């Protein structure tokens, strides 16, 4: 204990050592960070911070009044010899009602504002780029629309992005403090959140749901690039042989094409080319939206939700254990591609890599020239226990 306290004064060295490894020109804690928060890197961050500070000041006023009144009473009415308690009313309905109802009004506003800002992150625009986030003890994998994968997240400035999350093993939670957003990564289902980065730079990614031995090492970086061209230039490792949907097409031909058409004609099973995103009627009369969770469930448990006209028992066999979660992701990408060609390959194909001359970039972006090794280093260093 003692040497640690002695070393207390030396902590600045420790931070500096760390900053040297860190590629961002800003250093570790950004000067743009406020006292309470990291920098505001998403479109929601500003609202979250505003509401937080509003609650903070309202709470502070209430707290100071409570403690102030308490201290005043304790001093004024402290026990003194010869002076007993003085009579005063022990009940006053008006006062009771007032101090119950008045604070409630402020609470209603907190609720309303908080709910409003929360809903922002739940309804992404239709053209949002979709990136699959996979949590696995104790690493993150990000799968981009073109089928490439990386252990760090690369986003494009001002581009609405839907992060679709799934887990390979246990619960994780995907947290980027600078975005003020967090979502649990749940095995057996897809979750998502929507984010629009409004600031370029490099930001921390944490796992915030306890996941075992190296939970605290399960962290990585999120890079926000100025545009596609920069992202392409910085991420040479994004160079897939096949786009995600192409992999999906191959899997479709191997596993699904016997019963499902892609020409709109129903066969043993429904045609799959147009149903993505639509509401399907089920045999029990209810409807279900064809999204990641439904497709995944239908592949694993065909009888869970049978489409009207194909019941009462689905003829489909289960693909649980035959197709991996990754395969299912590819098949989903293929269905999206069938519905709207090009939706799954906007990033990898469209941006010409040559259009990213380093000179055109501000110095912050150009500072880390060799992104890959530099970026790996802090992640490895921070998780050195693993």
């Amino acid at each position, binding site marked *: 204990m003692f040497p640690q306290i002695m070393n207390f004064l030396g902590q600045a060295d420790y931070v500096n050592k760390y900053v040297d490894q860190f590629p961002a020109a800003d250093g570790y804690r950004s000067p743009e960070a406020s006292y309470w928060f990291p920098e505001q890197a998403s479109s929601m961050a500003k609202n979250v911070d505003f509401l937080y500070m509003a*609650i903070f000041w309202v709470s502070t006023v209430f707290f100071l009044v409570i403690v102030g009144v308490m201290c005043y*009473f*304790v001093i004024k009415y402290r026990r003194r010899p010869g002076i007993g308690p003085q009579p005063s009313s022990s009940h006053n309905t008006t006062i009771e009602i007032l101090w*119950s109802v008045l604070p409630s009004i402020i609470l209603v506003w*907190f609720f309303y504002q908080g709910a409003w800002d929360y809903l922002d*992150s739940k309804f992404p625009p239709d053209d949002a780029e979709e990136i699959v986030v996979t949590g696995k003890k104790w690493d993150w994998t990000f799968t981009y629309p073109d089928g490439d994968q990386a252990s760090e997240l690369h986003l494009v400035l001002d581009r609405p992005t839907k992060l679709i999350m799934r887990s390979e093993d246990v619960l994780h939670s995907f947290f980027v403090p600078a975005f003020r957003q967090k979502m649990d990564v749940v095995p057996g289902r897809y979750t998502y959140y929507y984010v629009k980065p409004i600031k370029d730079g490099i930001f921390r990614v944490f796992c915030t*749901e306890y996941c*075992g031995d190296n939970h605290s090492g399960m962290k990585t970086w999120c890079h926000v690039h100025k545009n596609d061209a920069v992202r392409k230039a910085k991420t040479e490792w994004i160079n897939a042989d096949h786009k995600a949907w192409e992999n999906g097409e191959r899997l479709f031909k191997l596993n699904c094409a016997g019963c499902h058409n892609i020409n709109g004609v129903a066969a043993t099973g429904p045609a799959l080319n147009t149903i993505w995103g639509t509401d399907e009627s089920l045999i029990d009369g209810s409807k279900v939206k064809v999204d990641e969770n439904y497709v995944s469930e239908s592949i694993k448990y065909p009888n869970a939700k049978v489409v009207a006209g194909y019941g009462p028992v689905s003829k489909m066999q289960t693909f649980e254990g035959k197709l991996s979660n990754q395969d299912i992701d590819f098949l989903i990408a293929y269905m999206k591609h069938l519905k709207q060609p090009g939706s799954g390959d906007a990033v990898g194909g469209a941006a010409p890599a040559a259009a990213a001359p380093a000179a055109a970039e501000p110095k912050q972006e150009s500072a880390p020239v060799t992104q890959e090794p530099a970026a790996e280093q802090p992640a490895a260093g921070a998780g050195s226990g693993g």
Partner: protein
Amino acid sequence: MATAEVRHELFGHAEQKNYLNHSKGALSWLLTLDHKRIGIMYLIGVSAALIVAGIFALLLRTHLFYGDSSFLALKWLFGEASQFNSNKVYNQMFTLHGAIMVFSFIIPSVPAALGNMVLPMMLGAKDVAFPRMNLASFYLWVFGTGFLIVALMRGGLDTGWTFYTPYSIETDTGVVYATLGAFILGFSSIFTGINFLVTVNTMRAPGMGWFKMPLFLWALYSTAIIQVLATPVLGITLLLLIAERMLGIGIFDPRYGGDPVLFQHFFWFYSHPAVYIMILPAMGVISELISVHAQKRLFGYSFIAFSSVAIALLGFLVWGHHMFTSGQSVVVTLIFSAITFSVAIPSAVKVFNWLATLYKGSIALNTPMCYALSFIFLFGIGGLTGLFLATLSTDIHLHDTYFVVAHFHFVMVGGTLTAFLGGMFHWWPKFFGRMYNDFLGRVGCFLVFAGFNLTFFPQFVMGARGMPRRYASYDPEFQIFHQWSTIGAFVLGIGIVLSFVVLLHAVWYGRKVAGNPWGAASLEWQSSSPPSFHNFDHKPILHDPYDFDSMVYDKGLDTYVLREFMDPNQVPERVPVTH
């Protein structure tokens, strides 16, 4: 017997004949059916649990003094001193810190230990309704805690006290022992709850209506309702978890079509009401402390009473606020957020009423009052920071960070532990007939208060800046806060140890005190100190528990007695001794 002697025996310091020396020998304690002795055994038990889990906390904080610490990889115990091994030990230690603190300390602390000692006497009763069940509850506590310790010996436990699936299904640590432990502790809690419900319903002194009860009883009654209704759900959930782990029945495990989020719903359906099992009795203690030591009738009795019931009922409807990021539907998330805000109101009402009680009082700044004031300060912060977490958009950012850790420690430790210590200092003279050193008591209170704030205030800042909880290592930007927090934890630890030393010292060496040193008006103070085996040797006279004018100082006895008993020649009616 002379009148003075009889009066001394009934109202004074009962050295000759009291429940402590009523019978002798270890078995007379271990097999006792006396609620006071069971309460004291509980007190010893929960204090031991507090110390064990507290030592875990100090080890954790020491480990966290450095961001990449391998402090916990104690080589002789856990093999290679690598950081990875250290992480494993850290994970087990924070799990057992949480599990023992929650299940073995906080939940039984005020109800089972203090409540057992005080509740029947406040009602003017001889004992609880089911004394054998009461003893069984204690032994279930012992076995349950034993299982948690066995889990520690047999491979540890690294799931967090929440046992979230599917990690708790696949980890190779002692999940089954620990869940069995929590299951048994749940039964202990249910037994206490049933006992208190029946006792309050059937054994109130003749003429004691519901609104003539001290507010501590309202709090314990509300708590008992939650214990009886919510705990079975935890029991079932934990059994399902064991079945899932051993048999793979496929209810929580996604590999067999189960849903891990279902476990969270089940778990929090108990564990959120359990939060109120932890804090409601503490609020009841504070109501007593404030009124007695300010010698002032509680302001807004019925509002405080009904706010306890309101909290108990609303507490059942907010479990989903632990799961805002879990993937539950947006609609349900909005509903849970709205209901969560509604729980804030009755809590605030209590605080305002306590403050109004102080108005024009005669406030003694003795140790129990210092704890009560400290409670208002700390619970104020704990409650207000709850607003940040009830608000959806801010909670999404703060969830599972140190902000949450700080928030619930302010409520559970700043609230419940403070009230528990305050309650001990308040009722200690009653149950041991001895007064502690008040100066050292206040020093202990100050150390607990200061150490606590130093420990947990920096955690709010860390959390808002993004420091996730349950991390064995962390980024250097958080280090300075962790270091303050660690220093604070040691101050807090010293404060708690000092408080225990002060109390224990008083048991043998404290100044002898008579029945009612505080001038308190609730029934338990009408007996001698320590109380006799049957609680009251005379018929306690029922009167308003907050009418402090009815208590007058008796010079001969050096204590306060009821106005009805102030005539020194009067001998109260004795209760016929039946056995």
